[in-house]
C-alpha cells in the first residue's frame, strides 16, 4: 500500500488580537448578556514607571553617602489655607478604600500600618467607621457624590477632607457595591435596604463645575472652621485642566489617580478603556501647578500602579509631593496571597489574578463582609506587613535620591531621569536614554 507523502503542517497559531482572554470574554458575554464587573485597576500593558531610569551620580553630580548622610522624607500637605496641615513622615499615603468594599479588619490593618509609619489613611464611600478613626493617627475623609454616611461630626473628626471628583479606574463613573456586600452594618451606614446593589452617583448632587466646587470647598471650610486641608481627587483624563481648575477652586492638595489605580468594582470595559496612564498624567498636572505659581504650594499626590520605592522616586522626580498606594497596600495585607491558592482555584481564578472583589468571597478576607472570611485576616499582623512595605519603599526611594545627590526625596527632578521607550519619553517629558531627544514637545 502506497503512503501519501505527509504535508508539512504549520504550527497552530493563536491570534494576537483574539487572544485567550478576548475569546473567553466573548464567550462569557455571549452566555450571560451582562458586562464583566471586577475590581482592581487597568491590567493591559502600558507605558509605566519601569520605562524610566535614574541616571545616578557621575563626574558632574555628587552622590550622598547611603546610611550616613541624611535624606529627608517628611512632607507637609495642605498648608495653603488650613490651620492644621497634614504632616507625614514619609511621602507615601494610603489611598481611599471604603468599609463595605473592605472588611473592618482590613480597614483596621491599613490604619495600623500607616500610623506606625507616620502616614495617613483615607476613608471611602460609605463614611467613617470608629475602627478606622481609632487606628489611624491621620485620617483623610472622602467627600463623595453619594454622601453615604456623610455627617458633620465625622467631618470635624477628620484630619483632612478629600473631595472626590474622579477616580483613575473610572473617570466619569460612580461607585458600585453589589448586593452581596451590603450586609446589615453596611446597609445601615449607607441608609440602604440590605442586599440591594448600591450604585453611587457619578456627579455630586449639589454642585456642577469648578465655580460651584469653589463654593462647596468654602462651605466645607466654614463647617470645619478652616482647620483641615481640603484635597481634590481627580481621575487622570485631562490632568492639566483638571489640576488648574482644582487650584482655582481652592484645593490645598490635588490627588491625581492614573488608570492603573484600583477600584472595588466597576465594568472591565471602563477600567481598561477610559482614562490615561499615571505616567502620562503627572507632567501636565505639574505644569498646571507651575503655570499657576502653585507648585509645592498646592501639593500633588499621585496614585495608580505604584508598587515600590523606585516608582515613588520617579513620581517625586516628575514633580509630585507624595504618592498614594492602594493595590500594593492590599497585597501587603495578604490580597492574592498564594497561600489561598486552593480557594482561588475554586473561584475560577488563581493567586495574583483574583479580582472579583465585588462578589465578597475574597479568600484572603480583605474585600469581603463575610465574617468567616474576614476573620482570616489578623489586623495586627497585616498592619505590621503594611508598615514593613512602607518602610522598604521609603528606604528604596531614599537610596535612589542619595544616589542622585539629593538630601530630600522631593529634590529629585526630571533631569535625573531618562526613558527607555519613545512613548515613555514623550509622556514623562524626559530624554530617551542615550540621547537628548524629548519627543512630543509642545502644548498639553
Amino acid at each position, binding site marked *: 500500500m502506497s503512503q501519501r507523502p505527509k504535508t508539512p503542517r504549520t504550527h497552530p497559531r493563536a491570534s494576537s488580537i483574539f487572544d485567550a482572554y478576548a475569546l473567553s470574554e466573548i464567550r462569557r458575554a455571549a452566555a450571560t448578556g451582562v458586562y464583566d464587573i471586577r475590581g482592581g485597576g487597568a491590567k493591559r500593558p502600558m507605558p509605566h514607571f519601569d520605562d524610566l531610569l535614574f541616571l545616578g551620580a557621575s563626574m558632574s553630580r555628587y552622590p550622598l553617602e547611603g546610611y550616613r548622610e541624611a535624606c529627608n522624607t517628611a512632607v507637609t500637605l495642605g498648608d495653603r489655607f488650613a490651620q492644621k496641615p497634614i504632616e507625614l513622615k514619609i511621602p507615601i499615603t494610603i489611598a481611599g478604600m471604603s468599609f463595605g468594599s473592605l472588611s473592618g479588619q482590613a480597614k483596621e490593618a491599613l490604619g495600623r500600618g500607616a500610623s506606625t509609619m507616620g502616614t495617613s489613611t483615607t476613608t471611602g464611600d460609605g463614611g467613617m467607621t470608629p475602627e478606622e478613626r481609632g487606628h489611624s493617627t491621620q485620617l483623610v475623609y472622602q467627600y463623595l457624590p453619594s454622601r453615604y454616611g456623610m455627617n458633620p461630626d465625622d467631618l470635624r473628626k477628620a484630619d483632612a477632607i478629600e473631595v472626590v471628583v474622579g477616580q483613575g479606574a473610572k473617570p466619569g463613573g460612580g461607585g458600585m457595591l453589589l448586593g452581596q456586600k451590603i450586609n446589615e452594618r453596611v446597609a445601615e451606614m449607607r441608609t440602604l435596604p440590605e442586599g440591594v*446593589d448600591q450604585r453611587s452617583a457619578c456627579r455630586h448632587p*449639589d454642585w456642577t463645575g469648578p465655580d460651584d466646587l469653589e463654593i462647596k470647598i*468654602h462651605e466645607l471650610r466654614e463647617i470645619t472652621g478652616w482647620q483641615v486641608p481640603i484635597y481634590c481627587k481627580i481621575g487622570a483624563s485631562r490632568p492639566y485642566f483638571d489640576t488648574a481648575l482644582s487650584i482655582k477652586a481652592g484645593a490645598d492638595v490635588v490627588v491625581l489617580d492614573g488608570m492603573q489605580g484600583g477600584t472595588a468594582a466597576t465594568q472591565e470595559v471602563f477600567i481598561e478603556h477610559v482614562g490615561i496612564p499615571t505616567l502620562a498624567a503627572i507632567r501636565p498636572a505639574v505644569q498646571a501647578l507651575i503655570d499657576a505659581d502653585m507648585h509645592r504650594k498646592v501639593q500633588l499626590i499621585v496614585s495608580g500602579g505604584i508598587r515600590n520605592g523606585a516608582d515613588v522616586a520617579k513620581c517625586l522626580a516628575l514633580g509630585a509631593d507624595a504618592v498614594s498606594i492602594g493595590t500594593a497596600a492590599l497585597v501587603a495585607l495578604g490580597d492574592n496571597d498564594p497561600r489561598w491558592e486552593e480557594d482561588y482555584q475554586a473561584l475560577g481564578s488563581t493567586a495574583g489574578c483574583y479580582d472579583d472583589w465585588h462578589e465578597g468571597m475574597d479568600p484572603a478576607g480583605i474585600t469581603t463582609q463575610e465574617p468567616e472570611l474576614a476573620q482570616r485576616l489578623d489586623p495586627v499582623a497585616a498592619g505590621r506587613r503594611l508598615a514593613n512595605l512602607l518602610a522598604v519603599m521609603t528606604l528604596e526611594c531614599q537610596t535612589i535620591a542619595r544616589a542622585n545627590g539629593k538630601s530630600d526625596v522631593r529634590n529629585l527632578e526630571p533631569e535625573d531621569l531618562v526613558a527607555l521607550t519613545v512613548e515613555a519619553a514623550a509622556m514623562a517629558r524626559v530624554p530617551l536614554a542615550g540621547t537628548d531627544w524629548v519627543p512630543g514637545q509642545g502644548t498639553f
Partner: protein
Amino acid sequence: MIEIDLSQNALREANQRLQAVAADDNARRFLLRNPRGAHAVAAGLKAPIEVTIEGHVGFYCAGMNQEADVILRGHAGVGLAENMMSGTVRVTGNASESAGATGHGGLLVIEGDTSSRCGISMKGIDIVVGGSVGHMSAFMGQAGALAVLGDAGPSLGDSLYEARLYVRGRVESLGADCKEKEMTAHHLDKLGRLLERAKVSANPRDFRRYGSARNLYNFKIDNLGTY
C-alpha cells in the same frame, strides 16, 4: 435676640459665633441681617438655637444643619440645607437646585417653589414644598419624605430607593423605577403629621403617593432598557 449684620461682620465670624453656642448658653436666638447672597450662611450649626436670616442667600445656606431652627426670610440659592442632619429650616421664598440634597434628617420647608433635584439622594430628611418642584426631584432618594403642594417636573423619583413622595398637583412624568402607590390610611396619617409639623394647611387626601417599584434594586439584564 442677638443681631449680626453681615454687611459689617465677616461671614466667618458670624458662622463661628453661631457654631460656638454651647448647650448651657443663654443666648439662643440670633438674627442675621444683610446676607446679600452670601454662600454658606449659617452652615455647620450644631446646637438647638434659632437663627433668622433677613434677606436672600447664595449656595448652601444651613448646610449640614444639626438641631438648629433656621428661618430664611428670602430666597435661597443652590443646596439649601444640604446634608441636614436634624433641626428645621424654613424658607419663606423660593429655593434653587438641590434643596435638601442628601439630607439625613430634620425638616425642610420651602414655602415657595424650588428648582430641580430637590431632595436628591435624600437619606431621611423630610421636605415640604408649598409650591412646585423641578425635574429629577428625589433622584435616588433613599429615605424620608417629600411632600409637594404644587406640581412636580419631569422624572420625579428617578432610581428611587425608599423615600416616600406625595404630590398634590400634577406630576409631569415619573423617573425610572418610580410608580404611583396606594395612599393607605397609614400614609394619610404620616402625611398629615408631616404637614402639621411643617405648619402647612393642606388635606392629605388631596395628595397622591409615589414610591419605588423596586425593580432596579439588583441588576437584571432584562431591565437593560430601563436604565
